């Protein structure tokens, strides 16, 4: 609890800061003095310096503290002038004066001493800023601030919280504050009444408080705490189960995305496209490229990369179909070898043309973080989007295959090439389109993956085998099979992982597939009839 104690002192200071009429400008000399202390004192004394600045009541203090927290507060060696770093990439940094705020342009890194910060201090600063935010006009930041308080309330704050709650309009915030206060009471005062408020709370600090209470020697408290704990544990196990399921589905959706394009090229055309993974890679790189093209708006770039990624991969697909696959009609095993060669070439191409290093793909704000169902169960946003995306893509493909002319022709050609031809269907055209479609979908998968994993030359290899497993397991040439198989394998894997560990889980899934194929050589949903024989 050491941190919260320290934080306590910080908070105390902040309340002084509220009490006194704020926002007077201290003399620059004085300000300079304050910062010098901060800059020159050792990391242990820095805390004191921080409190001083917070206490100074200077308008600029908040700005200083923030930039300090972000490692952006520095000093020019030569002049000793304090600066705030605006841009700190490369060897020359753009800075502005900390006191006057005037822009000082670019200064070589060599002349800048940044004021060192570390996590301990950052905790302090967050505490301070959050308490200041308790007064902020927007409910959202008040709520986060209130949540942040849980487990770090101290005597001083505890006295002020009730009055704060009274003039608090939002119930959510008030609830959070009440819990924060209750935690404090249970922890520090062993208040039995407060235990009731905590019962059923999923907040980890609350749990910690209760556990501590259970260790106390006050029988009544122990009893109450134990009871409260029981109710919490129950809730937790439920949430755990829900979470695992969610993990399973999200992994499944990734598998489905990776495999569904293959289900088209492999399942419908009988082409074993080992370069499928690299087509995904292209999609991912497209996303990166788009983000490079429009710096500053990763979100838009990402959305635009959905069509772009599809297009790029599709075109690549057409190229592969024309140059390689069309020469290998009815020789599936040979397509495997040839396309494997293609995959090697594509990988090396990316390595030499772009870089062997992974590329940074930025996650837009609306995709990072998670939606909090409750304090024990929150669904990560990027995966949520991926699940949705997978389902949309699947639905789209279903439509194309079932409702459009292309879909009809594709099915015709796959059932009986000669017959379809004689009915005036251009088989070659259909082949190209089908393969382009499958490849394009792979591109889409790549766009999605860029938000989950590395964007690098090896992205493809990581998924190709899994994708084949999914398709084969689901039953070749059956989209529903692919969907079901992907989701099933994903969930099985996640169910196994807790007790088998990540590696063993994967192995077990593979073995399971191998055995399953023995039982049902044509997967979950096999194609029946004389066509499928032979």
């Amino acid at each position: 609890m050491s941190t919260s104690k320290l934080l306590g002192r910080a908070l105390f200071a902040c309340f002084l800061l509220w009490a006194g009429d704020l926002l007077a400008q201290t003399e620059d000399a004085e300000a300079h003095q304050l910062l010098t202390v901060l800059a020159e004192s050792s990391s242990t004394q820095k805390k004191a310096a921080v409190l001083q600045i917070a206490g100074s009541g200077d308008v600029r203090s908040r700005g200083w503290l923030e930039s300090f927290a972000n490692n952006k507060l520095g000093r020019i060696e030569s002049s000793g002038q304090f600066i705030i770093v605006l841009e700190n990439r490369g060897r020359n940094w753009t800075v502005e004066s900390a006191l006057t705020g005037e822009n000082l342009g670019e200064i070589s890194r060599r002349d800048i001493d940044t004021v060192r910060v570390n996590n301990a201090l950052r905790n302090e600063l967050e505490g301070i800023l959050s308490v200041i935010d308790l007064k902020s006009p927007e409910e959202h930041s008040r709520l986060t601030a209130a949540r942040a308080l849980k487990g770090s309330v101290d005597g001083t704050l505890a006295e002020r919280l009730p009055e704060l709650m009274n003039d608090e309009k939002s119930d959510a915030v008030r609830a959070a504050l009440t819990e924060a206060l209750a935690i404090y009471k249970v922890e520090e005062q062993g208040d039995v009444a407060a235990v009731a408020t905590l019962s059923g709370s999923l907040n980890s600090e609350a749990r910690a408080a209760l556990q501590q209470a259970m260790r106390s020697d006050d029988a009544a408290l122990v009893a109450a705490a134990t009871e409260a704990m029981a109710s919490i544990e129950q809730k937790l196990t439920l949430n755990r189960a829900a979470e695992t399921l969610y993990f399973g589905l999200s992994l499944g959706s990734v598998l489905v995305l990776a495999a569904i394009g293959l289900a088209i090229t492999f399942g419908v055309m009988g082409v074993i496209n080992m370069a499928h993974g690299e087509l995904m890679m292209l999609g991912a790189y497209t996303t990166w490229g788009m983000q490079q093209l429009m710096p500053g708006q990763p979100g838009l770039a990402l959305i635009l990369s959905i069509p772009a990624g599809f297009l790029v991969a599709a075109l690549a697909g057409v190229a592969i179909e024309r140059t390689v696959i069309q020469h290998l009609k009815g020789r599936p095993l040979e397509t495997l070898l040839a396309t494997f060669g293609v995959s090697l070439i594509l990988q090396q191409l990316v390595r030499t043309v772009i870089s062997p290093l992974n590329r940074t793909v930025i996650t837009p704000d609306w995709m990072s973080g998670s939606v909090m169902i409750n304090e024990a169960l929150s669904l990560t946003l990027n995966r949520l989007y991926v699940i949705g995306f997978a389902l949309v893509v699947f639905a789209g493909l279903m439509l194309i295959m079932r409702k459009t002319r292309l879909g009809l022709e594709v099915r015709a050609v796959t059932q009986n090439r000669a017959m379809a031809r004689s009915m005036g269907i251009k088989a070659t055209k259909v082949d190209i389109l089908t393969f382009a479609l499958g490849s394009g979908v792979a591109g889409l998968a790549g766009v999605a993956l860029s938000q989950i994993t590395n964007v690098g030359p090896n992205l493809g290899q990581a998924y190709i085998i899994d994708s084949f497993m999914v398709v084969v397991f689901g039953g070749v040439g059956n989209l529903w099979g692919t969907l079901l198989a992907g989701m099933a394998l994903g969930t099985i894997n996640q169910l196994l992982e807790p007790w088998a560990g990540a590696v063993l889980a994967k192995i077990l899934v593979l073995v399971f597939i191998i055995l399953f194929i023995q039982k049902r050589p044509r997967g979950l949903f096999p194609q029946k009839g004389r066509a499928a024989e032979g």
Partner: protein
Amino acid sequence: MWLTRPLQERSTRIFLGVLFAALAIVSVLHVFMPQDSALYVSAYTVTLLGKYLCYALLAVAVDLVWGYLGILSLGHGAFFALGGYAMGMYLMRQIGDRGVYGDPILPDFMVFLNWQELPWYWLGFDMAWFAFIMVLLAPGLLALVFGFLAFRSRVTGVYLSIITQALTFALMLAFFRNEMGFGGNNGLTDFKDILGFDLRTDATRLGLFIATGIALAIGYVICRGIVTSKLGRVSVACRDAEARTRFLGYRVERVQLFVFVVSAMLAGVAGALYVPQVGIINPSEFSPLFSIEIVVWVALGGRATLYGAVIGAILVNYGKTVFTGIMPDAWLFALGGLFVLVTVFLPKGIAGLLFKPGKSRDASNTPSAQEAAA
């Protein structure tokens, strides 16, 4: 007798002649040429050639199942690696107390992960004969079980290829795990000696090289014996018209199983000879990529010829040795391009270029001819 039959056919005699001549020349140049002479073959080259021969044997094994039985195995690397591990375990035990921790029983990696006693599956590997039997048995059994399941339920073609890939992939993940007790990613290494011969002496290297050459010869004759026997013709029948073969009363799945197991054992032997020469065995030998590469050697050399497989294996790996030196980037392009070109434009491979098309099964082994020779 099916094993001696190949010795009467021209192609085999030529092959063996070339092989043994090469062995002899290399040995002579290595032993009798002065170090500085241009003709001198260094120990480094000898080991390199030894490695190629291991790959060649592996390729022959793959050609046997793919070329003559039509089973495209993308998991033969697994059998190769298993043989290698069996040998590696023997070599590990041979180190004895000369490991860095001087532990008489436990290999080093077990000591610093403080394992207390040797896992049961390591027992017996201190005895050469046991290890050498395991070299055949481990891959053989895996092939037997896997093949039995697969062929019984008539998993063929693409499906088979993909589950063989799953098989080797699963094994790779398994061997990466340190709990398995096979040294995890580091695998087995720092071998000292084999059958009492110090692995660091050139004499031992030459010995291993020659042994590999002989193994290749024997392997080749066995495969040749099978494919020129009636069983070989039944295999081809299975490859081209499985159903028809069944209606003739042949148990296709048993034919497939037999040939598959033989091939797996040959791969195991190749692996076992590979390990002492390169000095390390680790899970990367299980990687699906490697298994696919093997198939490409065969495709390049020419399917269903056996000697084509040998040519392909040696050519590709020689190219690798050369190109990774001078142009590392270009190498992957070259390899990839090779895959595409061969499969698209050279379905018969180099053998198909060298000899008249349609002779992939040379007429010299029609029964009448053999009996005439016999």
